[in-house]
């Protein structure tokens, strides 16, 4: 018996014609193309996002420059003395010019 006759019909089907050339062609094309971008790269290179970021930075920087910080002196319970009255409260010595405690706004100082 011919051995080839035994396995006739069991051979795998041949590939479609032209498949090899197509595969090689696709491979060559993929090698020549740029790699696909990841999300971070897409974000980093997005023009619209860059413009938005720059705008946000400029706005926030300007706001920080033009908005004065909150001061320690609040309206609170401590008001400021009339300068004329404050001049009397200005005692000799170190450690600050004004009396502690209660204060109110005032006018020019005076000799007392």
């Amino acid at each position, binding site marked *: 018996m011919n051995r080839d006759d035994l396995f006739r019909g069991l051979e795998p089907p041949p590939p479609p014609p032209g498949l090899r050339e197509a595969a090689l062609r696709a491979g060559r094309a993929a090698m020549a193309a740029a790699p696909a971008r*990841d999300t*971070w*790269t897409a*974000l*980093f*290179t997005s023009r619209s996002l860059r413009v938005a*970021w720059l705008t*946000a*930075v400029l706005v*926030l*920087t300007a*706001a*920080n420059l033009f*908005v*004065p*910080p*909150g*001061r*320690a*002196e*609040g*309206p*609170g*319970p*401590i*008001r400021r*003395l*009339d300068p*004329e*009255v404050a001049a*009397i*409260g200005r*005692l*000799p*010595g*170190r*450690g*600050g010019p*004004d*009396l*502690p*405690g*209660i204060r*109110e*706004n*005032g*006018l020019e100082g*005076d*000799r*007392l």
Partner: protein
Amino acid sequence: MNRSRLYVLGACGVVVVLATLLAVRLLGREERDAPAKPVVPLARYDEPAPPAKVPPPVAAAGLKIPCWGCPVEGKSWPTTFRTDLDILAPLGDGAGNAALWLKDFSKAEGSRSEEAEKAAKRRVEGPPEIGKVLPPDDPLLLEAEPWADQAVMRFYPEILPLEGFATPIPNLLLSLTFAKSWVARGLANPDSPTALDDCRRAIRWGRLLRQDDVTVIQDLIGLACIRIGAQGLYDLASRRGDMPLMLASAIVVGEHGPQRLRTMELIRIRGDAVVISGEDRAGDGRLDVLVDRARNAPDRRFRGEAVLQLAIVRQEGTRAQRQRAEETLAEIAAAKDPILSALARWARTATLTKAELAQQAGTM
């Protein structure tokens, strides 16, 4: 790490930092601009000043020059005149409380605060050593005169509340202006029979302002009024050749400076600001001084100032300092003096804001 991811995260970080800084600034402004405690206007007092008589000055017998600088003798004195001011200007006997009238001109709560502002604008230049004064026939100045003849001027605690650092004070600029204006009027007409009376009125006004002995600034303004009046008496007496009056007024004027210096000593510690915080371990010595003042200072206003400072220690001191402050405040809260007791009760419960703490730290 993917370089693009690093750049993107860095850019986001910049935005977050800037936004955080802006938020901090805006929150700080909100705290500053937050509405203060609503001001309750004081009911206007429309009654006229009760009639009063002002006795003549007593004879200046046995005048002495007090030695404020003497280490033993002077150190224990209350910070008030050692010379009897009745030799210059005895108080009147009016039955009213001048504080009822003066409170209406308080800047925040007074029903006549606008009149006080207008009066301040009506001032004219007086003698160089006095400054701006009201015209001699100013209606508000004339209205104040009978109130200077009363025997009492007490604001606390019935008329103005005791609220720690927020304790309201009367219109001290107006008070000072009255005294200056009377003296200026007297000096403008030195030969007038009322010239001496005008200067004495200023001294009485100062004595009345010092009666409360609650806030240091009110006491200092009263002291200033007395000095101005005494200086005026000296100038008039000098012109008239009245040696006894010159001597008495000169001694009184001479006591003005030592009292200011003593005031400075008693509201500061070794000339420095009293700053006791959790980090200030060296503040234990200063705390000793504060506690001693709160308990033993000869004048109530200095005890009160020490109590207010203990409120800061109670909040900001080390654990041991806070405990000590709390114990001292508890002791003073049980004191018989209703004013000190009220201040100590406030101090035991007060929570001071950062703005208040910062202001106090830089103000002694």
